[in-house]
């Protein structure tokens, strides 16, 4: 190695020469490349988000007296949220939803699919992958119909299969249904991410483990998982955030029955539209954003600890 003579860690006196990146782009042109995207993101994502934060400290509603002259109410929307049993309920349900459908459902099913499909016959693999992806790309409104039909009380497919005519799944077990639904809907992403992650696991390591007589589970735990830990965390982070902000439960249950499946985004929607309380709903949105941030930071910490 070339490290025998300790290289002096001085910053070189940068002389102007050809651009240093591979395509000769240069910093200024690179900024030009990034600018349109940043502009759009700034205008249609960051700006509304900041605005939302502002609305969150007012008692703004779209109609009524407060529409004319909304007043700044400080943090009272936030204190209200902290005492709002329905918000607590929504938060709890969101946690269940994320935990059940993303962290456990999509993650595990996605990994299982990626893991088993690796060695499956191409025809089998293509069919299964196409089905899983189809579930992912169908428009959500259409998907909502599919699942309402699936769970239907009278003529639903599930009841026909199980012979449990008359069981109102969406009423009796709303969260279970949502978790199932979202697992079905989102597994494709985890599957794709894990299949590409698994390609990065050197086959020789899997085979080594096999040579030592390790069982499938031992191999996954001792060899595969440490390799794809980063991917697992990134994937879990992404799907958790997406699931936490997912609005499609509304299409299935509208939050019902009796708030039993009212996750935070659905609650926000109901507060904003049914109640018209935009100030309050913005405050809750902001709380959700903070929660997302906290979760993301936690994941990032875990990720960093790895190295």
């Amino acid at each position: 190695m070339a490290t025998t003579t300790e290289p002096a860690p001085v910053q070189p006196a940068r002389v102007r020469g050809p651009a240093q990146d591979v395509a000769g782009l240069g910093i200024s042109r690179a900024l030009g490349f990034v600018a349109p995207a940043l502009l759009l993101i700034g205008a249609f994502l960051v700006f509304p988000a900041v605005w939302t934060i502002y609305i969150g400290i007012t008692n703004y509603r779209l109609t009524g007296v407060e529409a004319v002259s909304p007043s700044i109410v400080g943090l009272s929307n936030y204190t209200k949220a902290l005492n709002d049993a329905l918000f607590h309920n929504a938060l709890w349900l969101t946690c269940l939803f994320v935990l059940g459908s993303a962290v456990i459902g999509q993650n595990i099913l996605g990994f299982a699919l990626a893991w088993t499909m690796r060695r499956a016959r191409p025809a089998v693999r293509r069919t299964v992958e196409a089905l899983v992806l189809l579930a992912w790309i169908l428009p959500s409104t259409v998907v909502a119909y599919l699942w309402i039909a699936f769970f239907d009380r009278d003529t639903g497919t599930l009841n026909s299969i199980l012979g449990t005519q008359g069981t109102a799944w969406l009423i009796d077990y709303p969260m279970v249904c949502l978790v199932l639904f979202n697992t079905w809907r989102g597994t494709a992403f985890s599957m794709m991410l894990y299949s590409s992650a698994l390609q990065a696991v050197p086959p020789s390591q899997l085979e080594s483990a096999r040579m030592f007589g390790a069982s499938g589970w031992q191999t996954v735990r001792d060899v595969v998982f440490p390799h794809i830990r980063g991917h697992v965390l990134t994937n879990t982070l992404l799907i958790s955030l997406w699931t936490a902000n997912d609005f499609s439960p509304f299409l299935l249950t509208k939050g019902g029955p009796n708030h039993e499946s009212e996750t935070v985004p659905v609650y926000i929607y109901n507060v904003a539209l049914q109640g018209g309380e935009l100030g309050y709903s913005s405050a809750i949105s902001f709380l959700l954003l903070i929660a997302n941030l906290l979760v993301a930071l936690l994941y990032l910490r875990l990720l960093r600890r790895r190295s």
Partner: protein
Amino acid sequence: GCLGSSDSGSGDTDANRNADAKKVDLVIGANSVKGGKNSAGAEFTQDVLIPKFVEAQKAKGVDVTVKFEGDGSDDEVYKQKLALSLSNKAGPDLISVDGIWVGEFAQAGYIKPLTDTVGDTAKVDDWDGWKQIQDSVQQLGMFEGKRYGVPAGTDGRVLYFNKKLFQQAGLPADWQPKSWDEIISAGQALKKLQGVTPIQINAGTAMGEATSMQGVLPLLVGTGATINTDGKWLGDSPQVRQVLDLYKQVYGSGLGDPVLQREAKGRDKSFAEFAANKIGILLEGDYFWRSVVEPKDGVAKMADRDTAVGYALIPASKAGGGVKGQDFVSMSGGGATAINPNTKFPQQAWELLQFMNSAEMVKASLNGAAKITQRTDVNSEVLAGDPMLNFVATKVLPVTQYRPGLAEYPKISAALQQATADVVGGKSTDAAAKSYQTAVEAAAGSKDKVSSN
């Protein structure tokens, strides 16, 4: 400012602006769209009303272009979109709003009294159409005693019953209960039939406002109370508890199917079950008769509707126990058409509004169908052939009540729905009523705005 219309400043306030314009553009906005479920309304506006109006104006030498902006969506979403437009001083010139939004929109300054917009009090008040609209119906377009819009049709609620099932249960075909107890006893008789849900009264949060309109509110007025009296909202009170007790009785003793009330599509389901002769008694509006079990185009057709479906007035809890001492009660809803205060052509918009509500146009809008319109002259003509609608127009409308058009109403309504959901879900009346009180207080903003006698 960042939030809506806090600065009303620069808008053109001259009511006679562009009054003499020879080239006029108007836009009508409504939550109906061709091919949607309220297709007929959109079709009428686009294919009949607009051409006719354009023609009439042409005769006067004015070149008018009228556009129809139809939406097809959830009422709440439509309302939000409309409010957003209005708060930005935009939106259609004529807007159709639900009666209960009039108050909130007026408070927000999105709509103004017609006299303000048109500028000339006489011009508005002298419209001959007002005479044809019953006072109770005019309430739909009014707020704090001022006219904000012209009502656009109304409806009423009754108890439907399945005569075939009644016959099997040995109940009369001309059933008319006079108290809640009679409903319950009819239900108990029906309960003996196999596979029949005796009574279905909307409850729960899943079907939203349907629970209030086709459930709690008609029952509540049957106890003699109204949800808002003199600016105070009704809180945890004997009347509310009485209503909740009834729910408890129906759904706790197997007279009703609680699951139906919890499903997102539960109302559609109950329609289908009624049409399939599986529900005995159903509290619904005349919409049910016109569009659901209608033999030709209904969504749950009943070929033998005219013979098989009976209807009765909703009784007060006991004779004379209803609001204003009535024996029978009902709730009504309906929309109104208002003028966007920011229209470029206020005078022409008012003309269009009048034209739209002329006897000729109102009749044309029905396109041969029977429906309760805002105009009595039209009603007496078109409802003659439909005993049921005639029944509503003549027997129900006189005893009916409207919801208060206040911004807090939706939350109060939600609280009522929640209370029924609690009861149907198994909570005690007491507990449900108590949490109702809390919810109402939060919705009203302060304890003083709530009465709990």
